[in-house]
């Protein structure tokens, strides 16, 4: 079953974190991804730039509206995601608990519904 792990955490700049904490975080991420890959469950992942780099777009009444900043103005922002293929929710929960983001933020586990294969939507499962 495909699950997307959405990592939410309060954003801190590299200056706020300091070089040591930053390095630890990066190492944790490196190790986590390698472990997932080793286990054969990792379909993909990405860590995003901080939310100040976001731009939002909506189209209403045929007009494109552009706004700076992220979708929601919350303290905890979406920081990245992992897409896993595991047998059931318990397995996903186990991996989510080990995600670096779980320690400093919240991990949301959402099962996938459909995904693209060569640009074509294919139902999951």
């Amino acid at each position, binding site marked *: 079953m495909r699950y997307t792990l959405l990592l939410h955490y309060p954003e801190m700049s590299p200056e706020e974190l300091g070089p040591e904490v930053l390095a630890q975080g990066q190492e944790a991420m490196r190790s986590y991804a390698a472990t997932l890959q080793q286990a054969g469950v990792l379909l993909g992942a990405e860590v995003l730039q901080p939310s100040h780099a976001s731009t939002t777009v909506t189209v209403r009444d045929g007009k494109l509206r552009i706004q700076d900043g992220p979708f929601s103005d919350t303290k905890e922002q979406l920081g990245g995601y992992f897409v896993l293929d595991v*047998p059931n929710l318990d397995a996903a929960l186990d991996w989510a608990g080990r995600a670096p983001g779980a320690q400093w933020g919240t991990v949301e586990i959402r099962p996938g519904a459909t995904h693209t294969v060569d640009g074509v939507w294919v139902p999951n499962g």
Partner: protein
Amino acid sequence: MGAERLTLRSMSEHDADARAAAELAARASYGRLLATLAAGTGDVTVAEDALADAFEQALRRWPNDGVPASPEGWLLTVARNRQRDEWKSARHRLAATLEGIEVPAMDSPARTAFPDRRLSLLLTCAHPAIAKDIRTPLMLQTVLGFDAAQIGAAFAVPAATMAQRLVRAKRRIRDAGIPFELPGPEALASRLPSVLEAVYGCLSIAAPAGTVDSVQGVPAPRPTVAEGLFLAELVADSLGNDAESWSLAALAAFLLSRPVGGTYVPLEEQDPGSWNTGLLRRAEVYLRKASDVTSESGDHATPGRFQLEAAIQAVHADRVRAGRTEWTVLATLHAALNLVAPTLGSKVAEAAVIRRADGPLAALRRLNDLAEQHPQECERFQPYAVARADALRSAGNFEAAAECLERALHLTADEAVRAHLRTQLEAVRARLKP
């Protein structure tokens, strides 16, 4: 849903044997069959539908073809075929293909640590990813075969709301991929309270024998208190040193020791000689085991909810020996219960006991407080109306007592209880005549 559909088919008078066999299978095996069907797929709704279809077919075909040598095996085979048809349909997406699913036979030697798959299913319903307030209702429906209306009544929630919540919960189990697997020993401890609550629900919601379905006028297949006792014993045995599960088993044995069916007789008016001594002895053994565990765990261990409820039943049962009910002792136990596990039902029960121990005015004060705190719930809660009527009558306020009895009647579905209430109402009305 499954239990309701069973009664929609008309049944010939001459097919009593086939009907009885199907109903016996329904009562004894519903949960086990459902657990077997749902295991490995996670889709409880499809399993429920398949099982309901199988029961319908049984009721149609067994009268003509005869009851099969293994009714449960027959039902399982038919239900599995129905399940396969459902999966082939494009509406259902499943993680595993049919070929990959391991569905062990009910009597296969490849067993889990728990001898009864119903326990596995109960524990699955208590998964942490399932919302707390829907775990017990889910167990009551999927494992124990109660319908949304019965469960709703037990939780003071409208039937339609409960039905919707259950549908959503089962959809979530399927969509989120919550697995039907036994949790490890650590998880067992955290899930146990929900399971015990569901077994307890089985004891308190189970209809007494002789209850008829209002649609077809035939005995409605519902889990019995015996099923609750069996499950409680199963849990207690599996754990060994858990006081609450032994207490629950004791409670079930006490409840089962009293004859049911026919006329409704309130507990304090029942003839103690009619109570089953074997079950009473069993109850006392279980109660002893529970208190041994509690005392082993150190001084001042607070008795749990079921230990208190079992103790309350033990006091009632003690009437066999003592010749009367010790209402003051009961009042203390009820008060303790309301500290540990207060519910509207337990508070009303305490008020009823207070009427005996301290008189009707004290009871009415309690009932008035309750109505102030929970006006809507008390309005539609049958035990509240009964307790209030009882206190009013005892206080000599026959007009108000009559009103309450009428409301109680309105809220009561069980025919035997209705007859009892009607008798009370007539007696009260007789006091009203100048």
